[in-house]
C-alpha cells in the first residue's frame, strides 16, 4: 500500500548531448512509481514532466542532474543544470519557440513544446534561470 511507503529520493546525473542515455532518469522514476502503485494518470504526468526536463538538460545545457522526491501525497521533480541559462523565461514558455540547433531539431526535438508540456503536467512549476547561471526547474505534482 502506498500509504505506508516512506519518502523516497532519487538522483540521476544527466550528460549534455547524450541522446542514448537521455530519458533514462525519467524512465527509472516512472518504474519506481509503478512498483509503488501510484495511479497511471499521475505516473504519466510525472514521467512526461521528468522526461522533458531531463531532455532540456541534454539539449540545452552543459550537463546537470535530475532529482525526484516521492511521498504518498506529492512528487517533486527537480532538474538543475549548468549551462547558458534562459534569458527570457516567458518567451521560452511559448509553444513553438525553440533555440535548439538544427541537427537536434532533425531528431524531432526542439519543437518548442518541452516547457509547455511540463506546464500542462505540473500542478506547480517554478523556473529559476539567468544568462550564464544555469537553470533550475522545479515541478510539483500532487497525488490526488
Amino acid at each position, binding site marked *: 500500500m502506498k500509504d505506508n511507503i516512506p519518502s523516497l529520493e532519487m538522483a540521476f546525473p544527466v550528460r549534455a548531448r547524450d541522446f*542514448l542515455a537521455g530519458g533514462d532518469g*525519467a524512465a527509472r522514476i516512472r518504474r519506481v512509481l509503478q512498483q509503488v502503485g501510484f495511479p497511471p494518470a499521475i505516473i504519466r504526468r510525472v514521467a512526461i514532466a521528468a522526461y522533458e526536463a531531463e531532455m532540456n538538460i541534454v539539449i540545452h545545457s552543459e550537463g546537470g542532474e535530475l532529482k525526484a522526491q516521492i511521498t504518498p501525497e506529492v512528487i517533486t521533480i527537480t532538474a538543475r543544470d549548468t549551462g547558458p541559462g534562459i534569458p527570457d523565461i516567458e518567451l521560452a514558455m511559448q509553444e513553438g519557440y525553440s533555440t535548439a540547433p538544427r541537427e537536434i531539431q532533425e531528431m524531432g526535438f526542439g519543437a*518548442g513544446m518541452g516547457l509547455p508540456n511540463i506546464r500542462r503536467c505540473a500542478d506547480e512549476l517554478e523556473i529559476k534561470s539567468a544568462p550564464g547561471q544555469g537553470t533550475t526547474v522545479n515541478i510539483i505534482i500532487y497525488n490526488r
Partner: protein
Amino acid sequence: MQLREIVERLKLQVLAGEKALDREVSSGYCSDLISDFIANGAPGCLWLTLQTHMNVVAVALLTGAAGVVFTGGRGIPPEVCRRAEAEGLPLLHTHYHTFEIAGRLYRLLYEK
C-alpha cells in the same frame, strides 16, 4: 482492435515486442516531433513516425503507446530494437510512407 490483427492486415514487419501484440490499439498518431507526440499521443495509440533513434522507445513507453510503426522503409538501429524487446514494446516496420499507412490504419480502426 488487437495490435496483432493490425500487423497481419497491414503486413507490418515485427522488429520487437512480439509477445505484446495482444494489446489493444485505441487510435493512431502521426508525428516526427517528439514533444508533439508527448502532448497529443493518447495512451494505447499506435505511433507512426520517421524517427528511428533510441528516444522513440523511451517516449513510447512513458506515454503508454501501444507500439511504434516506423514508416518509409527506414533502417532501424539494432540497439533500438534490443531496448524495445527488453521493455516489451512492439516495434513495427513498413515500406509504406506515413500517409499511406495512416490511411490504411484509419480504415481498419474506424470503418468496420
